[in-house]
């Protein structure tokens, strides 16, 4: 299934000239692949010019150039389009530009800075394009569509208008290597398609929906992504699937007017558990907030990431052990890169024996994820006192009030903030 083919015509005048990487088992340290991947590049011949759409990873450049030479001479190439600048698509660009110096390079506006940083070519010339711009190859027109953050800021799609062929970059792609190339010929790649979406596109689902609104009306007859099978059979079904995938996995059942607050905790002696209970109790006193309480101790496989995706606020309770929050808390916090969490509300609390660093560490991580942390966390030495549990209830209530917007517009002086901080230290 992986015997390397020659250049493959995917539509009249357009060839696949990419590279197969069947031995790959891990892509860019973040994705697994069961049978490798492909780096898809395409050559479009018009009556007045030849365009190359994307290149391949540098290590596979020889394979790419061999196929390119089967369908075009370098001096015929008038246009090079990079839909996405990640090294697996731009790796062969410097050599291609050396071989075809007359070709004009077309990239998105946001690709400019990345281009300079990724392609170390002096005095590199390029043209910036955005949605609606086009370049003519005579009887073929390449039209550009800005589809940022799928999955880098620079990403764009390119359409051959006359044939309805959409070169989509990473969107609608997947890591699946099969030399038969076309979706109606290759093996079952559905799991790879879904896995790719979940790990690459999911954090950007709002951008996915924007891009779909731009691309669906084009009704492409063929989608040629930068990885994996070429989608010529029912291409629009893959767009529909993206629309389904871009919906939250777990819908917020709290209702449109109710905010959802998730309180996660882990506790070695039961002290942080008591605090978590108090935070939840405090939050529950606020109308319009649905509070859920979860113990992280035996929850490795539970779908907390899916829950968090739709929550409005999250609070983490962790004991401090050896100067740190504990691993299950970090495990969950490190998993949140898969979803969009910015602008949710966050909070931290926990019991400690002698130092209590975990709370600040968790708060910093939450801020690092661009959550708002509007209420200072609560620490308690070992068994929380009734006063400290009261502070936990206040934390929960204030957090809930921030969620509902039921907060007084307060004015505070910087001096008071500094005093509070010193008292807390």
């Amino acid at each position, binding site marked *: 299934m992986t015997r390397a083919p020659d250049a493959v015509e995917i539509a009249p005048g357009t060839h696949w000239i990419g590279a197969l990487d069947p031995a790959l088992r891990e892509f860019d340290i973040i994705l697994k692949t069961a049978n490798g991947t492909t780096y898809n590049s395409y050559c479009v011949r018009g009556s007045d010019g030849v365009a190359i759409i994307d290149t391949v990873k540098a290590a596979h450049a020889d394979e790419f150039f061999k196929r390119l030479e089967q369908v075009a001479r370098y001096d015929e190439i008038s246009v090079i389009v990079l839909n996405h600048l990640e090294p697996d698509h731009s790796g062969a660009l410097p050599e291609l530009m050396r071989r075809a110096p007359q070709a004009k390079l077309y990239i998105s506006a946001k690709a400019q800075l990345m281009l300079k940083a990724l392609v170390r070519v002096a005095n590199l010339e390029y043209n910036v394009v955005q949605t609606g711009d086009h370049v003519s190859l005579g009887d073929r027109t390449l039209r550009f569509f800005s589809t940022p953050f799928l999955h880098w800021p620079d990403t764009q799609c390119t359409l051959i208008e006359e044939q309805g062929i959409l070169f989509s970059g990473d969107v609608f792609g997947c890591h699946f290597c099969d030399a038969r190339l076309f979706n109606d010929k290759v093996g079952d790649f559905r799991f790879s398609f879904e896995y790719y979406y979940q790990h690459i596109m999911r954090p950007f689902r709002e951008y996915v929906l924007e891009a779909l609104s731009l691309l669906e009306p084009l009704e492409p007859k063929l989608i040629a992504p930068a990885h994996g099978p070429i989608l010529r059979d029912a291409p629009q079904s893959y767009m529909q699937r993206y629309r389904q995938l871009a919906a939250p996995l777990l819908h917020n059942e709290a209702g449109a007017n109710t905010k959802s607050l998730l309180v996660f905790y882990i506790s070695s002696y039961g002290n942080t558990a008591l605090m978590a209970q108090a935070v939840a109790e405090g939050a529950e006193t606020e109308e319009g907030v649905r509070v859920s309480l979860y113990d992280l101790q035996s929850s490795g496989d539970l779908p907390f990431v899916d829950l968090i995706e739709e929550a409005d606020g999250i609070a983490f309770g962790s004991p401090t052990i050896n100067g740190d929050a504990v691993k299950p808390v970090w495990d969950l916090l490190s998993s949140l890169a898969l979803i969009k969490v910015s*602008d949710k509300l966050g909070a931290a609390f926990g019991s400690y024996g002698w130092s209590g660093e975990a709370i600040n560490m968790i708060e910093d991580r939450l*801020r*690092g994820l661009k*959550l708002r*942390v509007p209420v*200072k966390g609560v620490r308690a030495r070992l068994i929380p006192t009734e006063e400290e549990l009261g502070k936990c209830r206040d934390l929960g209530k204030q957090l809930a009030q921030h969620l509902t917007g039921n*907060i007084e517009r*307060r004015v505070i002086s*910087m001096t008071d903030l*500094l005093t509070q901080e010193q008292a807390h230290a």
Partner: protein
Amino acid sequence: MPKANVTFEKTGLTVNVPAGTRLIEISEKVGASITYGCREGECGSCITKIVSGMEHMSERSVLEDKVLQENMAGRDNRLACQAQVLGGDIVVKA
């Protein structure tokens, strides 16, 4: 000492601060969602939208201007680690 009122739009909190305070210092104290990386005006992580009161902010330095341009930031954006409040009322989107 001249003072400024900095309001964080999302939290509804207004902080009365001495003139010359950098936005990031205030943001950190109130837990607003301004993230930062280098704190030296180079990485662009702390780009923040000024909703109103830009006239009460310090002028952009050459470095800040360069980083904002490189990140294609709009005219109402500033680097929170560089921008100082000079007085009056300022509202930031955070």
